[in-house]
């Protein structure tokens, strides 16, 4: 089946460019320039995935409002924030609103497509849980299912964003091997700076620590990057 993607973006040039590329990928695209327009359309039918800009025309936080409104309609609908805002605060706020991913507009179209594809793949895997496990990594308490985009620690699912997921995935794939910030950025399809990487790592640690206070597998190697530190005993 063809997925329908809703694109809510007030800048028409960007909107059309994104719509074009998504259509070329075979998605059905419905593009909206404002929140009201989108809500009217969503009232009759929800899309399969929504890409939402945060600042919509006159509404600075129109995207947040739309996200909340969509979440109230559907818990499982994948939502991606695509924004020019790149501060930690905005990212955290966006994810708290219930978005599945938060991307800055620097992202190249291939990266965007990859992230969208990843989300759809997660949806599909959840619908068909029996699907293969070739993409599964297990490292002690950690279990990562790349196809389902699912990460578990001590059998508890860790609710990671896509970015965070790919970072953990990248670190865990080769334990003990130091991943530089640049590498992490590349493998999680991010165009951000060191500071953002640092704060992502910090958030990932916190999410693991919420499940297991003794968690200390992500090690900082000053000046180089991070590595997954495998503790066999635990």
């Amino acid at each position, binding site marked *: 089946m063809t997925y329908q993607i809703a694109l809510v973006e007030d800048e028409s040039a960007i909107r059309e460019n994104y719509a074009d590329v998504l259509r070329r990928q075979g998605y059905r695209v419905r593009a909206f320039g404002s929140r009201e327009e989108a809500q009217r359309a969503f009232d009759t039918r929800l899309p399969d995935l929504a890409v939402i800009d945060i600042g919509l025309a006159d509404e600075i936080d129109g995207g947040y409002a739309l996200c909340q409104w969509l979440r109230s309609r559907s818990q499982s609908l994948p939502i991606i924030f695509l924004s020019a805002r790149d501060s930690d605060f905005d990212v955290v706020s966006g994810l708290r609103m219930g978005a599945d991913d938060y991307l800055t507009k620097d992202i190249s179209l291939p990266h965007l497509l990859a992230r969208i594809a990843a989300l759809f793949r997660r949806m599909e895997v959840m619908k068909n849980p029996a699907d293969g496990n070739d993409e599964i990594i297990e490292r002690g308490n950690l279990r990562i299912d790349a196809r389902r985009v699912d990460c578990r620690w001590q059998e508890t699912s860790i609710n990671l964003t896509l970015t965070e997921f790919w970072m953990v995935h990248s670190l865990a794939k080769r334990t003990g091997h130091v991943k530089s910030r640049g590498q992490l950025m590349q493998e999680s399809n991010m165009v951000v700076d060191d500071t953002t990487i640092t704060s992502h790592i910090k958030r990932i640690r916190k999410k693991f620590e919420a499940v297991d206070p003794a968690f200390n597998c992500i090690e900082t190697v000053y000046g180089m*990057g991070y590595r997954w530190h495998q503790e066999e005993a635990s």
Partner: protein
Amino acid sequence: MKPSFGLKSQALVVSLILLLVPAAGYFESLQYRHGLSEIQQRQLLHRVHGTASALESAKGIDLGVDLLAGHTLNPTHDLYACMLSESITLDGRNNDWQACNTLSRHYGKNNIINVYQHYTEDTLNFLLTLGRRDESLYLFLQVIDNSVVYREVGSLSVHRNDHIQLATMDPSGVYHRYTIAPMQPGPANAFLVTSIDDGSRALREEPQIKAMWLPTQQGYNVEARIPLSLVSNRFAVSVTDVDNATTREPIVTIGTASTSDPAALGTLLIPSDTLRQKLAQLDVRYTRLSVIDSNGRLVAHYGDIAGAGGIWQEMLDDHPPGWLTRVLSPVFALFLPKPDAHPVDRPRDPAHITGTDIASALSGAGKVIQRPASDSGATIVSASWPLRVDGDLAGAVILEQTTNGAIVLGNRFTARVMAEAIVIALLGALAIVGFAGATSRKLRRLRTNLESATDPQGRVRNTLPALAAADEVGELSNSFARVTARLNQYNRYLEDMARQLSHELRTPVTVIRSSLDNLSMHSLDDPSRVYVERAQEGVQRLSTILTNMSEATRLEETMNPADAEFFDLADVVTGCVEGYRLAYPGHAFELSIEHDFDKLNGLPDLIAQMLDKLVANAVEFASAGTPVKIRLTHERDAVLRVINNGPTLSNKAQARMFDAMISVRKGQQEDGSHLGLGLYIARIIAEFHGGTIAAYNREDTEGVIVTVRLPIMRITATTA
């Protein structure tokens, strides 16, 4: 920094103007003194008038006005007996005549009564002094005679030798003539001689008249006493000289007037004791009261000018000086006039007292003057009033006082006024200086607040606390608070600018980028593909720049003191340098570390990030083939140095290289994305850890040292 001429000093200078208050008091008191002097003069004139009236109404005052009516005083004939101050011993010496010696009169060739032979002044001349003591008239003659011839022993004749003749009218108006002609030096008697002839015959001895004849080197002295009962106001003295003891012929007779002619006698003024007693009865305290006759001769005086305050004495007694005046009196004594403690004032010539006031009184009008005392520095106020007897001008009354009382009183007034004024001025100055001190304290506090409100880079560190002052300083402080708040806003705006800019630019970049991406997905011919790829590269670079631009802001947002932990700085540095050896394969890194640190409290990720920036900068500017040195030393603080060889910094660059968006070193920038944010980020991190960052040129060679000082054990938050 202390101002060189602060408000307090200025207030001190300003309060100098308060010195005008004592000065004004001083000049005011001068008026008062002048007033005192006027009052004294007027009072004295008033009193002398009263005294004159009192004397006029009294009976029995004889100033000898009848004798001198229409007669000009001739000092040769008209004699004056002065008041002797001591009792006189008849010994022929004048050492007890002090009070009257100045009144001696010389008689010589101009005073010849009769000349019988050739006369030169060497032959005979004499000094005559007359005085009164108690009820006697005293006479002292200093005769210069080249040859003294005494009366022959047993001779009844008293004129064929050196002799003295006295002629007088007794109080009843009868003429008498006496001769003193002793037979040898020593006590001598006087003989009453016939009044008609040349006086050669002695009628009888007059025992009431006593004399002493004392030979001297030049001649002889005669000292004689005549009871006042034998004397009235007509009198003459003559001396006859006989030089030849054989022939005994007289040579010359010299005298005040002819003693043989009753009508030719001169006058004699003897100071009146009755008048003196009368004056004593008048209650004229602290004053000298004199009565003179119409020729200015002192008839009587009573009282003394010395040692009293004159008309002010009672006032002085009633109003003693206050304690403040007494305390300050040594100061005032420096410039206030001093009263003469022992004023001495004697009439130069009691036989002829002068003065403008006296002249005025003797011509019929009372007058008061001030004059200097004769023998001291005191000033005398002298008031004279005409004295009339039976309607005729007979003389004058003179009242004299010193101005001492007025001076003392005036001094006290000046002292009191000035003492009060000084106290007022001091209180005023104290108030002004205190006020200035309070104001300057407020201003200093404001200054301190203001200076601490911004950091050395001029950024607003904290908002200014408003001072709780209701005055202009408070207003100023509020105004500064507003200004710094505005400045703060503006600074934030500027700091936000990079982020805003990156935000605003991101949308058009996205348009370009998504368009290029779309384009590259179409099948393109080779040349087009090359251009699209180049455009994509450019957009990628632009995107990186935008990311960097907002990095500092995002960094500040992640710097949460609550996340601080204790960590080993040496470990971080060692790890980082390992990383750099991998990251910059073309460069050598020299690391030296002291390990004896306490753990640092902070965010190790940030420290690493800071070191990243410093090393990136050092590598960028390092000359080819030279190592970058990283040193960690313990110098009370933890000191991290990143040293390279390469281009040096200008002074300006040293000061500003850690500011945002400043790229100060000349160098090739590989990626073109260098916006000078790296060092700015390093500074933010160093400052977040309570440290400092600074860059210096190397002294040993061309190159730069960047030094970061981080305080050890700085507790920004408690960590588990």
